[in-house]
Structure formats: C-alpha cells, structure tokens
C-alpha cells in the first residue's frame, strides 16, 4: 500500500474536510444527491477531468503548464473515431487500412503522446516558455481536429467501443476503472520511482537538479508526452461516452484541469503537490458541478461560484505555506 502519511498534507486534509462539508450540505439540501445513481454519475463525469488533471499535475510539478490538453483530447478522440469508422485510405498509394477498436485507440494514444512530445521538445530544446509552446499546440491541435473531421461530428462507433464510455464492469463504470488505473499508476510513478523524484526536484530547483546530474530535458519531454497521452485517454473516454467525436470537444478542459490541480494544493511554481491532491480537487469540482445542477442554480451563477472556489483554495493554500 502506498504510504498515506507521506502523500498527505495539510492542504489535502483541508480539501477533504471541504469535500465532506460540501457533500453533507448537498445531502441535506437536495433529495437526489445521496443516491447510488448520482454517485456513479458524478464519478463517471469526473473521470475525464481526472485523466487530464493527472497529466497536468506532472507538468505543473516541473513548474510548467499545458494549455493544449483540451485540443489534444478533441483531436485524438476524432482520430480514434475516424479510424474506427472509416479506416485510413491513402488514394495516391491505393492503400486502405482498416482499424480494430484496439488499433484505433492505440493510434489515438500515439498521436496524443506525439503531440505532447512536440510540446516537450519545444519547451526543452528551443526554450519556448511552456505557456507559449502549449498555447500554440492548443491552436494547432484544434485546427487538426477541424481538418480531420471537416467540422462535422463522427458518430456511430459501435457497441464495443461505446462500452468504454458507458459500460460497467464488476459494478463500477468503465471510465472510473480507466481513470482509477491512471491515478494509481501516476501515484506510484510520482512517489516511488526515480522519474517521479526527478519531477519534484526539477520543479523545486532546476539549477540544483541540473548540477546534480538529473537529465532535465529528458524528464520534461516525458512529462509533456505523458500529459498528451492522458489527454488522448480522456479523448477516447469522451468519444466513447457520447458515441461521437465532436470537433469542438474539450474546449476549456485545460482550465478545469488546472483548477483541479490548484485546488488539490499543487504549487504552480512547481516542486510541491501530489496526485491524490489533484484527484481530490477534481472530485470537489465534480461534486460542486453536480450539486449546483441538482439545486437548480443558474449556469451563469455556477461559473461565478466555481471561480470563487478556485480563488479561495489558492488563498487558503498560500496561508498554509506562510504558517509552515
């Protein structure tokens, strides 16, 4: 078992209490919140954000940021859907390749990882600030999505693919299985491997890390590639759930992911934070969304409230740091 003591801090304890209070309030204020259906509903809804946020956490821990995950999600979802439905035909070579579900998914993952790699390469080899490099990728990947889909949704992807988004296994929805697997892997990666230690060291002090012989560029390229890959995972989940790849899927998902990371207590200046914290952050956002809908709060107010929660979380985190 992964040691809870070391992976838990004050910020997360506070988040946990906040989540508990939130759930308690919703249980009292609404009839439908404390039902099994609603529980799985919330869990399924957050699983996409969890996947992206985990990747975002890794990037933010290195003191970077990845704005491109929403667009990468859309592109990879569309690639998988398109390959699955239409295959790949290259008329000039008189070539047609059909794809199985697995093949289409792997292709989507490769593209996600590849675009992440490009982000990482730009950030390390060309020293482009992460904000700018991934902003450029945000725009490019959205453009690729539009080119690939010609602006139209790709629908009708078959039951076996749809199972990934809507199916259940051992009483738990598939997206929850997948995001859970992502979380566990990432927790082990960050707390139990050299790679994870390097991520924290680079975010904590890049100079000291370089002088200690840590391969900064390699680690960062991997981190951005993983963030791209996890965006692709999110893309497959979204596409499978809707049985459709929407060309404008995933817009502003990067902001939800950053919000989860920040609420979870990860410092945007790098080196401090945990995967568990981010998961908590994503759950808080998910429960808040769900609760506000159940309480019939206007969507406009929902945004205001979400924004305030993010601000509050960071203010509390800052005051924690000061008192340390």
């Amino acid at each position, binding site marked *: 078992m992964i*040691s809870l003591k*070391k992976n838990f801090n004050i910020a997360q304890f506070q988040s946990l209490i906040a989540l508990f209070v939130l759930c308690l309030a919703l249980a009292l204020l609404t009839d439908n919140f404390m039902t099994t259906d609603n529980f799985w509903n919330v869990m399924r809804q957050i699983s996409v954000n969890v996947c992206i946020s985990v990747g975002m956490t890794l990037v933010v821990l290195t003191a970077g940021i990845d704005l491109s995950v929403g667009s990468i999600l859309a592109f990879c979802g569309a690639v998988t859907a398109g390959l699955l439905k239409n295959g790949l035909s290259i008329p000039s070579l008189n070539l047609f390749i059909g794809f199985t579900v697995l093949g289409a998914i792997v292709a989507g993952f490769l593209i996600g990882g590849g675009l992440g790699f490009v982000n990482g390469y730009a950030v390390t080899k060309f020293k482009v600030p992460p904000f700018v490099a991934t902003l450029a990728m945000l725009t490019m990947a959205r453009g690729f999505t539009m080119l690939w889909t010609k602006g139209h949704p790709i629908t009708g992807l078959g039951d076996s693919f749809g199972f990934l988004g809507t199916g259940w296994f051992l009483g738990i929805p598939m997206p929850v299985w997948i995001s859970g697997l992502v979380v566990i892997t990432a927790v*082990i990666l960050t*707390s*139990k*491997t*050299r790679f*994870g*230690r*390097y991520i*924290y*060291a680079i975010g*904590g*002090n890049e*100079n*000291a*890390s*370089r*002088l*200690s*012989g*840590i*391969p900064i560029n390699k680690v960062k390229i991997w981190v951005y590639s993983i963030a791209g890959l996890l965006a692709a995972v999110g893309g497959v989940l979204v596409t499978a759930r809707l049985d459709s790849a929407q060309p404008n899927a995933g817009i502003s998902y990067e902001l939800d992911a950053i919000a989860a990371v920040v609420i979870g207590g990860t410092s945007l200046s790098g*080196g*401090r934070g945990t995967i568990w914290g981010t998961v908590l952050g994503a759950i808080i956002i998910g429960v808040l969304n769900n609760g506000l809908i159940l309480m019939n709060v206007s969507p406009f107010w929902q945004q205001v409230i979400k924004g305030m929660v993010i601000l509050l979380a960071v203010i509390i985190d800052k005051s924690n740091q000061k008192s340390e």
Partner: protein
Amino acid sequence: MTALLEVKEITKKFSGVTALSNVNLRLEGGKVTALIGENGAGKSTLLKIMSGIYTDFEGQILFKGQEIKFSKPKDAQEMGIGIIHQELNLIPYLTVAQNIFLGRELVNAFGFLDREKMINKTKALLSRLKLEVEPTALVGTLKVGQQQIVEIAKALLTESEVVFMDEPTSAIGESEVEVLFEIINKLKAEGKAIVYISHKLDELFALADDFVVLRDGKVVGQGGVSEISRAQLINMMAGREVKVVKKPTKNCTEEKVLEVKNLGLLNPENPQRPLLKDISFDLCKGEVLGVYGLMGAGRTELCESLFGLNHRKLTGSILLNGQKTGFKSPIEAIDAGMALVPEDRKKDGIVAGMSVSKNLSLTVIEKVSKFGFLSDVLHTKLYDKHVASLKIKVHNEDQAIKNLSGGNQQKVILGKWIERNPTVLMLDEPTRGIDINAKNEIYELIARLSASGISILVISSEIPEILAISDRILVMSEGEITAEFSSEEATETNIMNACIPENMNQ
C-alpha cells in the same frame, strides 16, 4: 557633537543563527567610516537593516538623536539614508533617467510624468559624477562600471545625508575608481556621513577617517584610521595573530588526475574580454588546490567549465586521468567522476522544499532504489550514514532542507557528492555564509577527503581560508591565472598583490 546616525546594541538572528550581536556604530557628518570584515562577518546584514530591508531586529537606530524605525526601504530613503548595494539594482530595459527616478518619478500638474525635468536633473547628476552617457540611454547598454556610477547617482538624487557604499569598486576600473573617490571626498566636504565597505585595505587607508571591524557579527575594533596599521587591521578581521596553520606542501609526484591546458571561455557579450583566458594547471591525486580571486575573476566560470557547462564556448583541453574529456553536460562530467558544490547554495545547491534525505539522494538515486522503485529503507540508511559522519544537525529525515542552517545545508550537499566518491571534487566558496564551527568542520572534512585520495579544487575569496586548507594556491584575475604559490610561499600579501588587476598591467 551629536552623531548624525547612531546604531545602538543591534542584534539580528536568522532562525537561531546570530548574524549581528550588540553592534554599536556612531557616524558623524563629514567623515568617511570604513566598515570592514571578512565575508559573513555581518556587513551586509547591517546594511540591510540600515536600508529598511530587515525590519525585525533588536536595538535602536538614532538619526540626529531621534529614534527612527523603518517599515520598508523607502522609509530609509526618505529619511536621508542612501544605500549603494554591491550587486546592481538597475533595470536594464529602462533608461538611465528612468532608473534613477524609479519609484520617485516627477510628475507635472496633471499627474503625468515630467520627462523633461527628470532628464535635466539626470544630466546634472551625471555631469557631477563625470559620467558621459545620455540620460536616455538604456542601462543595459552601459558598461558595468558605468552602471555602478548610475547606481551612485540614484543614491545621490535624494540628497542623502548618510551614504552606505557596499564594495562600490568591485566591478569598476581604475579611472572610475578615481572619479568615485573624488565624489566621496566632495560628499564628505558637504558634511555627509559616508560608510564605505570594502575588502581592499589600500582604498580604506586612502579614503577613510574612521574604521569599524566586524567579525562574526560583533564589532571587534574601531577607531581612527591614522592610528592603526595594515597588519593590525588584518589581524582584527581574521581574529588571530597570524595563526594560519599551513599545510606542508605535498609534492605532486603522484599521478596527475586533472590536466587543464590552455582553457579559454568566450564572453558572448564582449569578445575582446574572454571570461577565461589560457588557463593551464594540473591537479594531483589527493591534492587540495586553492583558487583565489576577486569577484568576477573567472573562478566560478572555471568550475562550471570543468563541469560540462558552457561547453560550446570552450577552447583548450581538459584531461581527466589522462583521457581527453569533452563534457557536454554535468551528467557526463558526473559520470566521469567530477563533482561540484556550487557557490550559491540557495540558487544552485539545495532543492529547498525537499527533505534532507531526498536532497542527499539526488546524485545517487540508483543507490536508494530497489527493483526500479525508490526504497524508504535505503533512504533512511543513506541519511543515517551521512548525518552521523558529517555531524549534520537535523530533526529527522523528512525535515525540509530549507529549515536547516547554512552550514548544515552545505554538509548535506557535500554528503550527496561524497556518496558518489568522486575523482575530482570542486568546492566553490564552500563556507560562504556559514558559522565558524561549521566552517572548521568543513575544513577538517576537506583534509579527510583529500587524504582518502580525492583531488579537491577549492575556490574561496577568503585568504585565511585558502591558506589554511590548500596544498597549492592559484590566483586568478580577469579570467587568467596570475600567480601560483606553494603553501609555504603563499602569504596574505603576495596573494592580494597577484589578484589586483592593475598590477598585471604595469
């Protein structure tokens, strides 16, 4: 006569370490007071208190007999205390005039910036300081010496009555030094009190009326400059009657571990003045080679170049164990057996938020892993080993390294390299900013490591330190090696003489 500025019983502590203890100071108008002391004696701390940067301390500051309290640097400025910091605090992308008026811009009746007035005032100031640059020139385009004068102009703008100057000549040339001395004498004649901080004793004798010597945060001597000799001052600073224990020179009969031949490092900003020029030396097995030089002499650049940084701008060759090296990164240098304890501990040494045991294992992460996963047990083992052998004072292995004292942080950094058992260990200012006990422990450690066969290159700007620990001493100035001494030949005077740039030109 009442003093212009009086400092009474000032004590300042940093997380338990006393930086200043019961310091008293009396500054009179029309006098230059030299404030001297070795690195870490507390000069900069005192300066930061006087400039309103540190506001929590014990003791009093009296200005013309009135007690004053600063809550921010601007308070000190407005009170008439001008500070010229050692490191330049200028913004390169702003003009000279914009920098001088930063934070106290002049505005016209409508509340808009009064550009013309500021430029005219700047012109007047610059001509007073004999600096021939346009007020509209960008500061980034000026030479360092010129920037230093701009910094002085900034302090003069407010017509400060007390001016603190922290090593104002460390970055400027001889002709500029003359101008500076003229300015200081003029200010003195105007009845201002000047505090002049410098390492260079010649300057103090030429300039100062009074002196104050700080050592380990205490005032250990003060009086009139005319009543004291150079030797007495040095003894006060060092705190010992030439008690430097010299090591017997080890003859380099054993194998040469590191051979540096004609090493050069280009200066991208100024191709005419390379950062390193024609550096050649050998380092033997188990030898401690001290490198002395003033700031900007190229000492740090030398270490970095040997460690695989700057490889694109390097010329010449470096041989390690007889093999030619061409390290392209610290990773390659480390793999080959090099190690570097950097000068700026906070910026380049520690990962501040990480625990002591994680910092210790940064260089040897494979040693604390089992089957590819990090092992808590192995971390603890590594931690226990080094805490015991290096006498690191720490609560537990999960304590963040930033909460340790400077000396203990340095021991952790040393520990992470010792664990790799390097061939060549480079120590860049290994005792900067750490207390005297930890210093001595580090000296002992250096002796122990060299005895075990590790070749050590130590950079230091403290002559007593260099004399105490080195088998051999190189002196650098302006990117070149200007002298080499065996530990028997080396004295404070001949090292000092070799490191002053002017001497070479004669």
